[in-house]
């Protein structure tokens, strides 16, 4: 029935044509009468006002930390306080100046395995989602796809005015960002990695980072009087 498996991809696909056509044929024959898509749903009505407090409370509820800051120098100060013992730091944010430059990036960055010993990764996210504390970033901002996962601690920097209310607004925003092209990989990241597989006991730090810190950038903030 099946020909040799050591032949290349092209031959394998021809082998599969039989199944492809029979599956599609059966599906087409059996699919029900046309049902139209529902009207667009844009989320709950009457959501207005500053989304920051909601975003912050959700991120904290899911095990992340949030800092509202006016600029990158504040970020560096806080990172030095929060992560005093980090050795290897990789940053996707050019504004971190000496903090990231003080550490050495591993040679051969093209191989994702080289990032296995990263303690701290700082990446810029496109926007945040208030209803679930998630941040969105595409692979262009990840340095490497594996970096946001393989690092022991993840830091995301997002503009405070780039928080949207729900996932509906999120995908509208993604459509704007991606107009004229589209990412090869992207992700919503909400909090540190976690599991509750052992008797429903929540443990932060499963296979991805053990911690997630979000910096909300707002240049209009004064240095005094923020979180």
């Amino acid at each position, binding site marked *: 029935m099946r020909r040799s498996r050591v032949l290349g991809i092209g031959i394998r696909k021809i082998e599969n044509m039989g199944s492809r056509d029979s599956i599609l044929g059966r599906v087409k024959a059996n699919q029900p009468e046309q049902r139209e898509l529902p009207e667009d749903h844009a989320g709950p009505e009457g959501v207005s006002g500053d989304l920051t407090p909601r975003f912050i409370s959700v991120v904290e509820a899911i095990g992340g930390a949030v800092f509202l800051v006016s600029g990158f120098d504040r970020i560096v100060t806080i990172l030095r306080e929060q992560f005093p013992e980090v050795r290897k730091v990789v940053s996707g944010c050019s504004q971190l100046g000496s903090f990231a430059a003080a550490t050495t990036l591993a040679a051969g960055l093209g191989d994702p395995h080289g990032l296995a010993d990263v303690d701290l990764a700082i990446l810029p996210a496109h926007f945040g989602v208030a209803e679930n504390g998630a941040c969105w970033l595409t692979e262009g901002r990840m340095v490497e796809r594996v970096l946001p996962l393989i690092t022991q601690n993840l830091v995301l920097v997002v503009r405070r005015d780039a928080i949207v209310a729900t996932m509906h607004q999120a995908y509208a925003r993604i459509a704007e960002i991606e107009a004229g092209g589209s990412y090869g990989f992207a992700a919503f990241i909400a909090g540190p990695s976690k599991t509750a597989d052992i008797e429903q006991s929540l443990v932060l730090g*499963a296979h991805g980072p053990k911690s997630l810190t979000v910096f909300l950038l707002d240049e209009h903030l004064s240095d005094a009087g923020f979180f």
Partner: protein
Amino acid sequence: MNKDHAALAADFNKDEARVDWHDETLWFVRAKRDRAAAQVPDWEVLRETASRIKDNVLSNLSEYLRRFEAEATRNGIVVHWAADAAEHNEIVLSILRNHQVDRMVKSKSMLTEECQLNEFLHANGVEVVDTDLGERVVQLAEEPPSHIVLPCIHWKKEEIGELFHQHLGTPKGNADPQFLTHAARLHLREKFLTRRAALTGVNFAVAETGEFVVCTNEGNADMGAHLADVHIACMGIEKLVPERRHLGVFLRLLTRSATGQPITTYSSHFRKPRPGQEMHIVLVDNGRSTHLGRKDFRNSLKCIRCAACFNTCPVYRRSGGHSYHTAVAGPIGSILSPNLDLKKYSDLPFASTLCGSCSNVCPVKIDIHEQLYKWRQVIVQEGNAPAGKTAAMKTMSWVLSNPGVYHKAGRMGRWFMLNVPFTVKNRFNAWFHQRELPDAPKQSFGDWYKKNRKHG
């Protein structure tokens, strides 16, 4: 003779304290779901929207599948089609062999459970490491998962501690979830870093863009895929959504329904392979296209595998996933499995009181409890009812269609209960094992009515 749900559930119920623990744990998850849903003002609108999007998907499935294939192929993903479980397994094996890979990491995929992929690969010399913590636990224990989202919900932490002590060398007696999770982190990190092939499931695939989404809390799907030379994604053909924006609806519903979280930690959107990587997707039929043609049952193909129905089902909570002897258990499994093998799974639609709670928690509004009822009719009509039951039902039908016979039978039954109680109060009467029978009154309501009211 394999045991059916009733027998397996009876075994499960021998340890009442354990049943209480299992039931309380899953009810806790149901309660978390309720709290999360209550925070979403448009929750019921979302359910209706998701349901109608999935109705649209099923009615245009062939077109959406073609579109998905075209887009994914254009983006550099190799698309495969598997008519059944055996073909799926062969395809996965052939991809691995092409890359001379004999060790692979795998993140959660109920489809691969359905196809029994692990056993097949093992028999063909390929080591598979399940990287979801719950799945790793059951893999080390050499048993199937009992829940599609919480694979080892039936394991106590002391038992996991003992298992890890044996397999991972953790200290004996350590049952601390934090410690055990950390041990698993180190153990599995080594696998991620050394395996060249990773297999993941697919939560949603988008016809418009050819991308697919994988949702995890642990990050294990990403750790595997982003470090591997070959990423194989396996997907049931029904897992499509029409456009990327529809993901907003489903991602708002999925995790709240499953665990009560607003969203999983990672919702990873895979559209193109990493430069230098090969990405494959296997589209699997395995009976779905046939099921699509069943007017009464096709709605079950809308399922997004959240397991909310498991957590709310009072029978599942008190019988455990293994009592269903199928890859996907619980209420949804009871209406999907008969499609795969009517005879083998003919007990499952009867493992229910038809309470209807499942249908109410389903984020895509599958009429689960109504399908359970309808499957019962099919199973009996196809000749799968036990002979004794059929005879009893025919008798019942005759008695209940003949008032004279019914009245006489009722009088006789009550006479026996009153005067010769051991005819019913004995160990052959299943009711009587753990319950008292109702007292038999001297007269029925009908008798009373005749004496006390002039009518009739």
